[in-house]
């Protein structure tokens, strides 16, 4: 069968699913946690290992070792997980209905990228109740680059009626190394998707559990307090100190040839740097040099990981 044949077969499957979805939308939309559960079910059915979140502060699911480190080397790897993300500068004291300094990404990594990855993704949208005949779903160019991870890839942001709901990337390089083979990464913005599916205008109004608990009930206080801390209270001297200590510890780990703990320190340095940014104490000129330091740590960790596994660049 040619690839276009496979594609057509997948399309047919999609239309069947879409027809089911139309019925689904008549029902009560999925709660926040049901969306996660559905995605877990769906990707579990596709053979993914369902992981739990990484227990460290990070700016994106891509920082999870299951993505960054596992994108390296030749071994196949299929995983899905929720990752809480912290972006201190995005905090709005709980006052903006669309922005949070702490939110959730649903992350899928498929390595090597399967030929029907786009269709697999579209089917996952149908599974959570988005009808592609009613909504405008589009793959819009968005090349991904993470200077802090020394990584880049090509792909799209997926739009649903003009809203970016997923970042879709074919990793080409990670930590400065060519990805052999290339992994496909899907990153769903869970809150945005849920707002869409539930038709609410504020994140805080999201139905969290389908049983009377809203997203705001759980997270509004967190947003208020964390925003205040991120922007106003966090002691910058402590943060500068933490940054330098994480850098030092990362170097220590690298010397001991321990790539995973080294990488954790790189993540830590990266998050502290984000906090310093939120405190507004890093100028445009200095920013590049800090990012350069974090990049060196992340790249060093990736390099050590490659070496530890005996993989050639």
């Amino acid at each position, binding site marked *: 069968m*040619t690839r276009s044949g496979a594609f*057509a077969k997948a399309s*047919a499957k999609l239309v069947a699913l879409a027809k089911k979805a139309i019925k689904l939308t008549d029902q009560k939309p999925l709660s926040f946690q049901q969306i996660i559960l559905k995605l877990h079910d769906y990707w579990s059915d596709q053979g993914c290992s369902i992981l739990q979140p990484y227990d460290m502060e990070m700016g994106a699911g891509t920082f999870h070792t299951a993505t960054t480190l596992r994108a390296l080397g030749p071994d196949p790897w299929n995983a899905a997980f929720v990752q809480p993300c912290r972006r201190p500068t995005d905090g709005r004291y709980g006052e903006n209905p669309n922005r949070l300094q702490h939110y959730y990404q649903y992350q899928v990594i498929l390595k090597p990228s*399967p030929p029907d990855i786009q269709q697999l993704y579209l089917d996952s949208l149908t599974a959570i109740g988005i009808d592609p005949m009613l909504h*405008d779903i589009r793959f819009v160019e968005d090349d991904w680059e993470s200077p802090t991870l020394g990584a880049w890839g090509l792909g799209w942001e997926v739009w649903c009626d003009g*809203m970016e709901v997923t970042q879709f990337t*074919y990793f080409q390089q990670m930590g400065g190394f060519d990805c052999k083979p290339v992994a496909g990464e899907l990153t769903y913005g869970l809150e945005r998707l849920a707002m869409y599916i539930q038709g609410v205008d504020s994140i805080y109004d999201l139905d969290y559990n389908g049983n009377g608990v809203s997203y705001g009930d759980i997270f509004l206080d967190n947003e208020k307090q964390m925003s205040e801390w991120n922007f106003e209270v966090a002691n910058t001297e402590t943060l500068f100190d933490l940054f330098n200590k994480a850098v030092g510890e990362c170097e220590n780990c690298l010397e001991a040839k321990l790539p995973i703990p080294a990488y954790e320190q790189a993540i830590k340095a990266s998050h502290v740097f984000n906090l310093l940014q939120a405190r507004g104490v890093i100028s445009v000129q200095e920013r590049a040099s800090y990012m350069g330091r974090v990049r060196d740590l992340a790249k060093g960790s990736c390099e050590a990981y490659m070496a530890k596994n005996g993989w050639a660049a």
Partner: protein
Amino acid sequence: MANFLLELLSEEIPARMQAKARADLERLFVAQLSDAGLKAADIIVFSTPRRLALIAKDLPDQTEAVSEEAKGPPEGAPDQAVDGFCRKNGVTRDQLEVRDVKGRPTLFAVINKPGRATSDVLSEAIPAIIKAFPWPKSMRWGDASLSTESLRWVRPLSGIVAILGDNLVACEIDGVASGYETVGHRFHHDGVVTIGNAGDYAEKLRACHVLVDQAEREAIVRDGAAKAASGGGLELVADEGLVIENAGLTEWPVPLLGEFDPAFLDVPEEVIQLTARVNQKYFICRDKSGKLAPNFICTANIDASDGGKAIVAGNEKVLAARLSDAKFFWELDQKTPLEDHAKKLSNIVFHEKLGTVADKVERVAKLAEWLVSLEGNGFYQSSPGDTLHGEVSEAARLCKADLVTEMVGEFPDLQGLMGGYYAEKQGKSEAVANAIRDHYKPVGQGDQVPTDPVTVAVSLADKLDTLVGFFAIEQMPTGSKDPYALRRAAIAVIRLIEELNLRVSITAAIEQAFNIYMDVFVQRVSDISPEFKAFTESKSFEDPVSFRIIVDLVAPKGKNTGTEALSSLTTRLKLPPKGHEIIELAVGMAADPLKLADQILGFFADRLKVQQREAGVRHDLIDAVFALGGEDDLVRVLARVKALQAFVETPDGENLLAGYKRASNILKKEMKDSSAPAQAGAHLPHDTSDAPSGDGPLPTQGNKGLSYTPEKAEKALIDALDAAQPDVTAAIEAEEFEKAMTALANLRAPIDQFFEDVTVNDSDAEKREARLALLARFRAAVHQVADFSKIEG
């Protein structure tokens, strides 16, 4: 004759790449055909987000048979050579022919190539085209990407349709094989679409909700958007870039009109436009009176089952979210006056060796105040206390305040613009608001130079401050690296000065900027250390005070190094660590300000050469004028250069240059031969060819003390110099450079005659020295205009 269809199916191709991809596909295809001796009657190319396609009309069924000859070794060459030749050309030995080449019997192979089936040519051409395709960015994917040598395409290539007439052109690349089957619209069509031939391609796809012709989709977007707008009683703000982009994002475009809450119209238009166009690819509309309307037009890719209601509702929600973010920033930012925003600049490091952005702003203000109070600056005039002075001072101190606002944090492109808006809202004068908005200008070659005096002063001061700071810490651009955009800053300064005829001594401005750096450092330390303040006030220094303080304070004394001097000062004055740090910065910067000025002036000269090249101004003439030394008024430099260029291209100019070079060579030789300078009542300018020689005292009336009767030509030159020199000097003082050139031209005949008739190297030492002095006088006269030794030719 048959028509050929090629479709390369892939995952979504970025809209911005499609136009070039179509052109590349056609170009590569034509090249492949012509290599095989084939030509199509016509070629049409299509693109959609998911496919690139080409139809070639009336291709011959096969290529023409050709007969080629290959020249081989001479007859009787070793067997090895002959066999090799046969192998290479696919002939046997008995098929070789012998021909005479310049009297030498030589073997020839005649290779008859029968016509090849076009279909065979195409099955080789397609993979070759795919491999050679010049995507701006390409990628690897899937199982094959285990090797970095795997096929690269803009996004994964998923299928190939290749049909010549009604027949499949079989080919395969990296596991993707050609076939008759493609896909229709991603959501509107179920299953495969089987294409019969080039003739039914577009129509079959149309039936499956794919419009392959981008021009047709563009027309639908363009007309559909206009129609949607007029349907709402509005006028579309035409945007061809958006038309093309939306056509490149859709296979079945459906423009839809949406609206947003008019309350968002409080937000500046630029912000709304930026949000709608750049982030969402929406068209915007104006109402009948030309005001921005609370509407937008998005382009969907489906005929939705509900007529697009859900899509419009979704897009409205997205835009509302984005605009509410913008409105939130807009309102939040205004709650804080710019003066208070500006205070936060002291938390932002401008450069680790140059202090904070607040320091920079303070310096820019001081320098801008100095610039406007310069006498005869040719453009504006102010003194402390007047309106202009006050506005310059205020605008400079607020010009970077918007950097810490939320809006600029979100949309960095809006720096300056937002500051201008906030200043306006805060009731600042128009001149101040304009200066805050436009002080980054001119940004590029095409950008307009601001003309408002307040803006000009702040813009100039900002750029000069940056240049001086980074040069002082030796962060000048190298090769292609210019991380602080210093070249752009220098070009901006040149353009401001040149286009507005500003009369500023660059050297003086650089020294001033440097002293201001020191002033601000000293001021910062004084702010936090009363002991330091009292100490500096107790000292009496010449101007510039701060620089002397810094140098004096940390100058090595006795056995102490500078570092030790600084440490002992810190202890003695109980300086807080911050104060110590600041003084360290000042010491780090405290280069020789004159040397610094020289370096930066040289940088300006280089930028000027590059910038003026397009205008046809010769770089050697710019060098010739700068080589005079002391010339740092760019307006005057350019006037001189332009007059000089006109002059040296006349016969008078050429001959004078020749005479000058001859005189100069003789003088150079003499300087080398005798270490004692010639003495004949005239000063012989010191001479190394790169030392400027125009600023020494001018030798005048050099013939007065002659002890012998000069020869006729010698006398004529003396007289001509006596006559021309005052004219040249007066003309230059009046900045009438053409007149100066005319006066110089009068020296041409006498100098020619002098070399014709007079022996410089006379055996009489007195004559020889007097004549050398005369030549030196001649050279000095010419040097009043430019250093002619730098002129080429």
